[in-house]
Structure formats: C-alpha cells, structure tokens
C-alpha cells in the first residue's frame, strides 16, 4: 500500500498544501513588486507576474530620482546612533533601578512606567516645535535625539539584571569592584543576549519610523528612507514602477539584516509577551 493513503499521510499532504498556499499568498505582493521593479517603464503592464524584459534601468532611475543613496546614509546614521544610545541609556538606568538603593526609587520607576503609556503620536505636535526651536529641523539631531532613551529598554534590561544573583554583586565587591566595574565586567556581559535583542529592536523601529521623519525632514537631503519613499511616491505618482523600484531598494537592506539576526529578532519581539 502506498504510504500516502494512510490518514496520517493525507494529513501531512494537507498540511503541505496549506503551507504552500499561505506561502504563495504572503509572497505574492513581494513577487509582484520585484517583477515590477525590474521592468522598463513602458512594459510594466506586460506580464505583471513574470520576469520578462528584465532591466536594471528602473532601479537606477529610482536610485537617482529618489535621492535614495543619501536617504540610506541618513537612515543608517540615525538608526545606529539611536540604537547605541538606547542600549547605553537602558543599561545605565536599569542598573540604577536594579542595583542601587536611593530615596524615591519607586516613584522614579513609576514615572518611567508611565511614559510607556504615552503614544508617540500624541507628542509629535509639541516635539516638532521643540525641535524647531532648537534649530534641529533637517538634521541628524532632530531625527535622533527624541529617541535616545526609552522606558521599554530600561525595563527589559532591568528584568535581566534582577535575575543576576545578589551574591554575584557581593562577590564582585569583595574582589574590589565598584559599581562601574561590576557593570562593565559582570552585568553587561551576562546581559548580552538581551542587549543584542534590544539593539536589533531599536534599530528596526528607528529604521521604520515614518511619521517623525516626514514631520521634520522638509529638505530632500535630510530624508530617511521612509520619508524619501514618500517624496518619491508623490513626485512620481504617474510612474508606479519607478516607485516600486525605490521600494525594493529600501526594503532590501533590512531584509538582509533580519535574515542574519533572526534569532535576536525573535527574542526582541517576544520580550514583552513572555514573562520572567
């Protein structure tokens, strides 16, 4: 008897059929985008699902017209600054909450907690005028400074610090380490997996920011890739495949980053869901 006729076998076939059809559904928009980006402008209506007339011209033109090189540099600079700063500020403040006793600790922690409830979208109006008053419109400071610290990162790192045995801190004290030494030699190395997840999470959310860069980057040279795409899509509204080529250029690097750091991403995204 053929194995596939057993109920178990049929169930497996069914599962594969579902998996494959879901794969097709999910990849469909990505496929259409890729095909469109590699077609010349006048052939975009021809075989929208098949890679015919493949050319790099559309991508080249999108790169040039959308000023995407500059946008990629801007996005990278801002995302790197924000990521490094968020990890550092989170480590510092988490250390204070986890290892130091000081009057008002609960209160200050409560204030941190409260900031998690404030949606960024509710603060953009005022933040924009703050940034404008500081003369930071169209600048790296303007794009990065509001995000240099987050309560989320502080909580995440504090949670890890709290799981370190108390004896470890005391052993370090006996060995002669002060707080900064303990932070550098013991706490940070032991929190490294979490710090990696936090870094990837910060990088990704900064890279993907949309409202803020479109609000404060009014000159093309200060666009991030997201606000740059917006500008491209509005300028080339009648050239859809130019826009889609720009989208491919913007999407590609982050796809690669995530393929490399899949494990950290899972940790970062699930950090809030799985309690310690």
């Amino acid at each position, binding site marked *: 008897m053929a194995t596939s006729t057993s109920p178990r076998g049929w169930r497996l076939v069914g599962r594969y059929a579902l998996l494959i059809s879901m794969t097709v559904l999910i990849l469909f928009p990505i496929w259409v985008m890729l095909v469109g980006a590699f077609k010349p402008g006048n052939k975009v209506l021809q075989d929208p699902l098949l890679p015919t007339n493949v050319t790099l011209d559309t991508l080249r033109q999108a790169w040039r017209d959308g000023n995407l090189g500059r946008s990629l540099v801007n996005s990278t600079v801002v995302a790197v600054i924000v990521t490094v700063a968020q990890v550092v500020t989170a480590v510092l403040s988490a250390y204070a909450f986890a290892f130091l006793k000081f009057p008002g600790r609960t209160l200050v922690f409560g204030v941190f907690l409260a900031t998690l409830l404030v949606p960024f979208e509710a603060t953009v109006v005022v933040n924009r005028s703050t940034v404008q008053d500081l003369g930071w419109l169209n600048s790296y400071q303007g794009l990065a400074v509001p995000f240099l610290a987050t309560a989320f990162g502080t909580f995440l790192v504090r949670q890890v610090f709290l799981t370190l*045995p108390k*004896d*470890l801190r*005391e*052993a370090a*004290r*006996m*060995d*002669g*380490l002060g707080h900064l*030494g303990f932070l550098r*030699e*013991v706490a940070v*190395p*032991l929190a490294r997996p979490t710090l990696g997840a936090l870094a990837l999470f910060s990088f990704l959310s900064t890279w993907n920011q949309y409202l803020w860069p479109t609000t404060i980057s009014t000159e093309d040279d200060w666009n991030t890739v997201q606000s740059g795409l917006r500008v491209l899509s509005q300028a080339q509204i009648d050239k859809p495949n130019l826009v889609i080529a720009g989208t491919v250029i913007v999407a590609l690097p982050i796809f690669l980053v995530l393929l490399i750091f899949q494990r950290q991403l899972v940790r970062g995204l699930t950090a809030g869901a799985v309690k310690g």
Partner: protein
Amino acid sequence: MAYCGAVADVRLNALTKVFDGVTAVDDVSLEIADRDFMILLGPSGCGKSTVLRMIAGLEDPTSGDVMIGGARVNDVEPKQRDVAMVFQSYALYPHKTVQANIEFPLKVRGVSKPDRAAQAQRAAATLGLTEYLDRKPGQLSGGQRQRVALARAIVRSPAVFCMDEPLSNLDAKLRGETRAELVALHARLSSTFVYVTHDQVEAMTMGTHVAVMSRGRLEQVGTPQEVYARPASVFVAQFIGTPPMNVLPMGVVFDRPFLVGVRPEHVEFDASSSCRATVSLIEHLGHETLVHLDVGATRVVARVDGDRDTSLVHRVGDEVGVLFPDRHLHHFDPTTMKRVEQ
C-alpha cells in the same frame, strides 16, 4: 608578602544590626585572635551570617564597631579590608573561565598579567584545579565550583577569610573530605578564618573556637570541647550534640528550682535504680543505638554503643531503671536558662 607579619585579629564591639525595625544582631562582642579558625554557629536566622557580612564589609553595622588588626573598619570598603569571602552559592562569574575567575581579584587590584596568571595557577594547583583552568563554571561539578570559589579567595592571600556555609551545597561524602582540606588549608595559610555554619559537626571538627548564636545574641564562645562539655545555656546544650542533651525539670539547688541536663551517652541503665522509666522507642543506627525512655512525663534519650546488642536487654514497653550520674549533670536556671555552677 607584607600581610605575613600583619596581625589580623578581628574584634567586634557591641555590634548591632537592625533591618527595618527587626534586630538581626544584638550587641555582639567577640574577639577573634590572629590565625584563629572561628566558627559562628547557630540555627538559620540567628544573625551569624549578618555578623560575617559586617566583618566582610557587605553590611554596615547599625551601631558598634568592627576592628580588624586593631583598626576600626566600619567605614572601610570591603576592597580595602584585606578580607576574602566564600559564598554559599560560590558566586562564580559564569561568563569567565576558571582561570579568569581566580585571577579576577588580582586583576581588579592592578596586578600585572603574568604575575596574576602565575598566582592563579598556584592557587589552582593548591586546590587540584589545574586541569580545569580553561573551563567555565557551568561545566564543573558542585565540588569543583566550591574549590574555584576557595581558590579565588586564597589567591590574594587575605588576612581574614570569611566563609558563609561553603559546604552546604555539597553531598555528605564530599563535605566530609572538604572539611579536612579546609583544616589543612587553614594550617598552611596562617590567616584568620571566620566560618559560618549551622552544622555542629563542621563546628566541632574544624574550629579552634566556636561562637554559638541564637536570636541575634551571642550565647557562648569557647573551644569546641568547652562548648560541648560546659554549655553556657540550655540553648547551647541542646544545639550541640546529637541527639541533643536531655533537659529535665527537677531538683532544687540553694533553695532555688533548677533544670538538670544530661547527655544521652551519660544515661546509665541500672536495674536496681529507684528512678523507673518505660522504653517507648528503640532506634538502631549501627554504630549506636538510641533508646527513648519515658521518665514520668518527660521523654529522655539514652545512647548505647552499637555493639552492645540492646535488643536482648530492652524491648519497647519494658520498665527499666535508669541513673543520671552526678558528675555528668549540668544545671541551668529555669528563668534565665543559663548555666548554674555548683
């Protein structure tokens, strides 16, 4: 090294520690001589660890003084006290190799790399760890980790060693072996040891002196033999010795009532004795046999050598005569629970 000539006696003056209104250590004064092996002994929660942590500098006294080598060190950071500590959990750095763990206190003190490697290797050799130097703590057995913790403590040759129940996470066999090694280590290092335990066997076998604590207070200080032979209080009498000393309410001394204590090994059987008892339970432990007796309303335990086959002599339910020889009796005041000398 310089410390060799230093006198590292530890003196505690009226030391008190209050945590959130709860007095953990209450007016403890204690002198620990240079090169002594002092055991702080007591049940959990009696304040012995807190005393140790105040000596190490991990806890600040609420009042009173800690003196090391004649100097008051209350406000001196642990780092400057020339004190090392071995923790119950060992507290090894999980991300560092054994070698790096042992070297670490030297690294913090700025010892050059070749020097500290050499010293770490020497300390590791002393404790038989040479072949594990490249491993991480997670790859070691409990006994090996404990040795790494010891090596990390001895590597910088401190004047005072503090140990907080370092053997309690080992199995019984390993604990017995390590006890002997610690005694040998103490003899070799010529440092002062302060050792916290709730295990009276560790106290009796390792200490040159034992300080028994209860509820934050010091009950008695003495050599293990003194503490066993002349317990200063009912608490000490019953805490040291297995099974504990029998304490019976009887008798009057100098017109005052008193309690009489007698250790199980000193209870004698004598058919002609006027003191009658009923055998309620017999426990054969191999090398010894425990006979539980009801003397009136009081339960008394007698210990008999294992090679005397008591099953032939006594059975549960038998009525026997017992004797408490005078020279083995301890007297305690029933109100203060302190020893009364006759």
